């Protein structure tokens, strides 16, 4: 075990870079995914079939083909058609497109759950379409979106581990190296999974905080309790759980 710790200490300096690569993929992928989601999500609910049709096709395509296939296809096959990208770019593009397609459904669904009356009130004030969306509808939809987007963000982080197989030196790569150094699978992978868990936890806090903030803007926020921000699942309806009692 002390050998393990020594190896871990030796490997620590490179952990920073590895975490950075994983974070770059996760956040880069998330930003791209959000752009894709907004374009496709709004595209999928326009009245014009010429916009709606292609949006739906793209969404279903990236949801339907596996992320694994997509990332390797972009990495191995696309260069043969003359599009060569750096591995990091490949990872970000694949993660962004794949999770963007999922997030597009979240965006569409949340926009649709904003009451029609809000659109109507905005029309009655003669606001233009873009203005209605930006100032009235989106801020309300945003609060609904965040929990589901938080979920996707964690999925995206987990998916980023694939990047190890397209030569990137991410956290998985670091775990693999630690395992080679120590020959102790349990130790190295245990440490590695904890690192992923910590990253996921921090991202979840961030999203919980964003959700509380969005809710407060809608005047629905009670002052956020620490539990809401630091808990992994915000807003668990404790009162319901209490009514129903324990396990049989």
């Amino acid at each position, binding site marked *: 075990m002390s050998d393990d710790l020594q190896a871990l200490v030796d490997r620590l300096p490179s952990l920073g870079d590895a975490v950075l690569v994983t974070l770059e993929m996760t956040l880069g992928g998330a930003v791209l995914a959000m752009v894709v989601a907004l374009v496709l999500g709004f595209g999928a609910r326009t009245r014009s079939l010429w916009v709606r049709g292609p949006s739906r096709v793209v969404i279903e395509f990236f949801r339907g083909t*596996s992320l694994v*296939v997509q990332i390797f*296809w972009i990495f191995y096959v696309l260069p*043969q058609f003359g599009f060569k990208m750096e591995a990091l770019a490949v990872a970000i593009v694949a993660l962004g497109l794949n999770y963007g397609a999922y997030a597009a459904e979240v965006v569409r669904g949340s926009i649709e759950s904003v009451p029609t009356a809000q659109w109507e009130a905005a029309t009655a004030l003669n606001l233009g379409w873009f203005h209605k969306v930006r100032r009235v509808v989106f801020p309300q939809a945003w609060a609904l979106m965040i929990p589901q987007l938080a979920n996707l963000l964690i999925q995206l982080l987990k998916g980023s581990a694939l990047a190890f197989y397209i030569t990137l030196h991410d956290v998985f790569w670091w775990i693999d190296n630690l395992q080679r150094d120590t020959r102790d*699978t349990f130790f190295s992978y245990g440490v590695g999974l904890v690192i*992923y*868990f910590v990253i996921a936890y921090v991202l979840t806090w961030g999203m919980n905080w964003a959700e509380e903030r969005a809710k407060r803007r809608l005047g629905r926020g009670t002052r956020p309790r620490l539990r809401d921000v630091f808990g992994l699942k915000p807003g668990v309806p404790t009162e319901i759980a209490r009514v129903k009692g324990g396990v049989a």
Partner: protein
Amino acid sequence: MNEEGIWSWEKAWEVLPSLLRGLVITIEATVVGMVIASILGLLIALAMRAPTRWVRGPLRLVVDFIRMTPLLVQLVFAWLLLVDVPPLVIGFGVLGVHYATYMSEVYRAGIEAVPPGQWEAATALNLPKGRTWFAIILPQAIRKTLPGLGNYAVSMFKETPFLFAITVVEMYSAALNFGANTFSYIEALTMVGLLFLIVSYPTSLLVRRMEIRFA
């Protein structure tokens, strides 16, 4: 590579049989994985309702830990650790456990969606607790979980290619093997993508119909 162009239909046709063999493994893994996930997920959901936080707390931590760390890393971890277990079995197990943590959330939501009046009625009839669960609560809760189960089955299907990392020859590995032998990665990888689409799109349409019916 091919002389006439980048894409060769001949190669695409050639790779198909081995891909279909891979597809069988892929579907097998999905089905077995989902069975494990459904049963284990329910057990987790029930255990989460234990009256003492000494059960709930640690269980919550374990579930979150599995849920929030990469499936891929978990697979490789289990594979390296359990050298004597066949890779496919490891695949079944890890997929099953990973998705059980998702399914437990689906069950929890399903159980909580049963109106309080149902519990009150059961109490009023003086039904024993076990009977209340099995005759009244679970049948209603599980009906509500079917769309969730369907969604996760589709999602697991699309995550089975991760098994390539532990030498299971599912569809994606089959394509890689073919590519390695013939240098025709384009056809092999593209066909895999199309096969995934062909299976998962109709299935997800089915699940969406289910969602509407059970909503």
